[in-house]
């Protein structure tokens, strides 16, 4: 009890002794830590971009850890060297901070804890393609408070780290540079499925973006539906950044070969889609197949 009282007195004494000079020193230390973290992050990012695809991810993984270490050292220096606060005093300070958190900075604290969890538990890493909440994109930065994502439309989204406590996180590659891509194509029900599957398989394995390995096999699936047939290719893209290029490349080359072999897209009328003259919105997945087969469109008219 005596010890706690002594600690409390020492802590109060320390906190009341903070003058302008000390405040400036603290701000300077944080500033130096921030600049240092930025420099190291930039250097590591640039280095990783020059490396192989797997090397890029490996280097980027260490960026959040380096940042965390820099900030821990900064905090340690401030508490240990400037305030001379150790042990029980830190516990007391935590109590005071807890009260402060209760009053107003709960969210910030939650984000910081989220940042620590992300750094050490690694539900995702820099370079991963993730979906969290309603966001999807490549993780470009993980700071203590927030995670930055670049969406497929090149928008930068800053998602608070506390999202991981409330939302499920899905990582498409989880530290690898290759990532599975699912490509769906829809063909007319009367098409020769065997030929179509062979063409789709060849389009996938011959794509310049494909990652081929026995550990990451290419799977071609067929599902016959009442009015049309769905073909699905599950394959890995060599670099997750080329996900959409890969999809587009497979679609384009598959449809060129489908047309040579008389394989057509489903007719619009069997999908209950209104006439092209009217104002309507097509389902995105269906739309992309029709673009390469104008024959089907003409017939439906």
């Amino acid at each position, binding site marked *: 009890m005596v010890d706690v009282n002594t600690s409390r007195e020492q802590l109060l004494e320390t906190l009341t002794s903070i003058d302008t000079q000390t405040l400036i020193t603290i701000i300077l230390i944080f500033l130096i830590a921030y600049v240092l973290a930025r420099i190291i992050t930039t250097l590591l990012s640039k280095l990783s971009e*020059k*490396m*192989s*695809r*797997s*090397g890029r991810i490996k280097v980027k993984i260490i960026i959040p850890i380096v940042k965390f270490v820099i900030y821990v050292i900064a905090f340690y220096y401030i508490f240990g060297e400037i305030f001379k606060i150790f042990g029980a005093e830190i516990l007391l300070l935590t109590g005071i901070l807890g009260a402060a958190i209760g009053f107003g900075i709960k969210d910030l604290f939650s984000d910081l804890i989220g940042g620590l969890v992300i750094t050490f538990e690694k539900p995702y890493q820099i370079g991963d393609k993730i979906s969290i909440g309603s966001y999807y994109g490549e993780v470009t930065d993980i700071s203590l408070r927030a995670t930055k994502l670049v969406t497929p439309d090149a928008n930068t989204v800053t998602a608070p780290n506390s999202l991981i406590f409330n939302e499920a996180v899905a990582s498409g590659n989880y530290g690898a*540079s290759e990532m599975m891509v699912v490509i769906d194509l829809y063909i007319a029900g009367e098409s020769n499925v065997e030929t179509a599957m062979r*063409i789709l398989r*060849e*389009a996938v*394995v*011959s794509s*310049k973006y494909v*990652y*081929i*390995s*026995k550990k990451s096999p*290419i799977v071609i699936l067929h599902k016959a539906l009442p009015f049309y047939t769905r073909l699905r290719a599950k394959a890995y893209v*060599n670099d997750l950044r*080329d996900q959409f290029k890969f999809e587009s490349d497979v679609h384009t*080359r*598959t449809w*060129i*070969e489908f047309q*040579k072999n008389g394989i057509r897209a489903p007719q619009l009328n069997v999908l209950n889609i209104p006439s092209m003259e009217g104002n309507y919105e097509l389902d995105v997945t269906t739309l992309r197949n029709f673009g390469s087969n104008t024959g089907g469109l003409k017939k439906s008219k």
Partner: protein
Amino acid sequence: MGTQHSGSEEKSFGEILGLRDEIGEIQASIADYETGKKLNIAIIAGNLAGKTTLLGEIERINLSRATGIAFSEIVRDRKEISLPDDAKRVVLFDNCHYLYMRKPGGFDIFYEFLDMISSQDRIFVTTWNLHTWKYLNEAFGLGRYFPVQIFIPAFNKEDLRLFILKRYGKNEIIFASDKQSKEEPLLYIIKYPFELAFLGKKIFIPVPKINILYLKNRLLNKQEQEIETAEDRVLEKIYLESKGNPGIALRIWELGLDYPRIEPKNIGQFSFNIDLEYEAAFTLSLILSYQGLKKTEIAEIIGSIIRVDEILFQLLTQELILKDEANSYRVRPEALGSVIAYMEKLRLVW
């Protein structure tokens, strides 16, 4: 004047190549076939590593019972793979990496070939480019059709010496010591080449080395020590640069030779700083995997002749490829190390 070894004519070429084990294994499989065991053979090697030469040696050994077919461009007609009526029981197919075209609808000949080699009562000995083999094996399980797979190993230094010098008469080539060889006869610095796939670059690291040959000659008081030292240094540099690949070694030799004289300092060490757009890199990987491609073939795979012109111009100006007398584009032998490292970095070959 020189001390080069050229009295190797009496040896069979297979022995010169240091491929006695490989030839033995192939011959054993052919012998097994005669007793009813059918094991198709794939000879697999990187560019310029000697697979055609090895197949030629197999054909020479089995002249009376072998039929040979070689491809020099992408096969488009089924007739090219069909066997003649008088085909013998051992069939040799050279350059099988030309049996497919990397595009949808470009694998029909390849499927037919696999069907033929698995259904016909013959033994098939085939050669494949290493990168194509790995690609087709991962994508189509090609290895299942070839129970015997021979990967041609790199030459050792002595094999490489014989391979290069067998082309010349005794003492025809003059090995001359350069300034560095004279000034640092015992201890010298040699630059070891390393191909770093994670950086996509070939780098050179200087390493100090003791000249054992010089030391030995000095102790034995031999007169020709200077010449032997020069020869040793020339061949050592070629060996390190080529990593035991005979085709690359020969090219480096030819580039350094000022007939009939050659000096260690004239043996080049090549490193190319490659930075290409993805499509150009993919085209380069195709040229590497097929070993040689015509412009029309590349255009058919890429899908645009205009783009191919741009890419080929870019690759030619960066001196990564050359156009041979058959109008095929090939990777320059001296650039192979850098190109492979770059392709491995992008995981376009592995």
